[in-house]
Structures are given as structure tokens and as C-alpha cells.
């Protein structure tokens, strides 16, 4: 069974305190991995696509990396506005292009 696990479930950081979020997956036929940010009461907002092990993508204070079994979202010197739930999702081909989501990491950055 395809499975995506995110850790930790919740993370509290002080402003400027860097950390990493983990997304591990057990799937067959991985076509790609996506990271999303979701604010309360809103739909997920796309951040990054990663297609193969060793790939890295950066945007402002966020950097996403990927190996064969997991992906990391590194947050460098976070600010309070980075507070959100971060979701990862794996793209599979199951007769159609299916996304399997993890349950997310709730990040709270305190000033």
C-alpha cells in the first residue's frame, strides 16, 4: 500500500531558529514529489516539485531536497509568517495521475 508519512506532526520554533521537516514514503512507481503550504481555512499552495534523488529546490527561506525514500523541507531563519501546515504529496501513476498526501507538519514560528 502506498504510504506517505510526515514528521514531526507539529513543530514550534523561535524566529530565526532553523529546522527541517521530513516526508518519508513507501510507494511504487514514484513520478514526483510535491511540497505544499496550507494556511488555516485555505487550500494548499504549491511550493516545490522534486523529480529525482539528489534534486534540490529553493525559495526564499525554504529548501526542498529528496533521496530515494524521503524528502526534507529545510527552513532557514524562519519568520512568523512562515507559520502554516506543510504538506508533502507523492505523484503516482495508477491509471491516472494520483497524488497521495501526508498528514502534514504544523509549523508555528514565534517572534
Amino acid at each position, binding site marked *: 500500500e502506498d504510504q*506517505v508519512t510526515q514528521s514531526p506532526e507539529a513543530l514550534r520554533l523561535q524566529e530565526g531558529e532553523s529546522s527541517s521537516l521530513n516526508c518519508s514514503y513507501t510507494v511504487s512507481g514514484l*513520478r*514526483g514529489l*510535491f511540497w*505544499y503550504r496550507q494556511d488555516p*481555512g*485555505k*487550500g*494548499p*499552495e*504549491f511550493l516545490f*516539485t522534486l523529480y529525482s534523488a539528489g534534486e534540490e529546490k529553493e525559495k526564499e527561506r525554504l529548501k526542498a531536497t529528496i533521496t530515494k525514500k524521503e524528502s526534507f523541507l529545510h527552513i532557514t531563519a524562519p519568520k512568523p509568517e512562515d507559520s502554516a501546515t506543510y*504538506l508533502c*504529496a507523492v*505523484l503516482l501513476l495508477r491509471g*491516472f*495521475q*494520483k*497524488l497521495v*498526501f*501526508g*498528514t*502534514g507538519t504544523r509549523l508555528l514560528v514565534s517572534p
Partner: protein
Amino acid sequence: SQTIHQWPATLVQPVGSPLSLECTVEGTSNPNLYWYRQAAGRGLQLLFYSVGIGQISSEVPQNLSASRPQDRQFILSSKKLLLSDSGFYLCAWSLINQPQHFGDGTRLSIL
């Protein structure tokens, strides 16, 4: 640029009443369209997907149905709502091998 609209943002309905949620996409042609439900503390669950007009596939058996009357219009319906249909409903679109992009969701409460 592409945009996705979902409405209403919030809906309160009595048990047994019908439901119609609408989603439209602008700025692209022949997108794949998706309906998800997100329960609190849980990942996004795919309900329906569509690869073209009139082509609907269901991922899980349930009290809901979906229709795609036009290329960029996706409708989620029910004839009689159950208490268990409460949740946060999200519509998304994508092109082949590309990330899915989400609307801002509908918060559905069943009384």
C-alpha cells in the same frame, strides 16, 4: 495565468438536504480536475477525478457524486446529505505530470 474558483466558501446544511458545490478553472484547457475532502488532522482524501468532459472516476464509495458538464467546470453533488459528509472540500486542477493547484475550499457543516 490560471485561476481556480470554488464556491461557496462556507455552507451549513441540514441532514437529508441536497448539495451542490461548484468549481471552475480559468486560463487553461482540458485540465485534469479533482475533488478532495480534508478531515481535521488527516490528509487529503481523493474523492473524484476527471480527465475530460463527462469522464468521472470515483476513488471511494460514498454518498457523493461528481459531474463535469464543461471542460473547466467540476461539480460535487449529493441528493441527501449525511452527518458524516461534514468536512472541508477542495477542488484542484492539473496538467499532465504537473502539480495540482487547489481552490480555497468549502467548509461544509451538516446539522
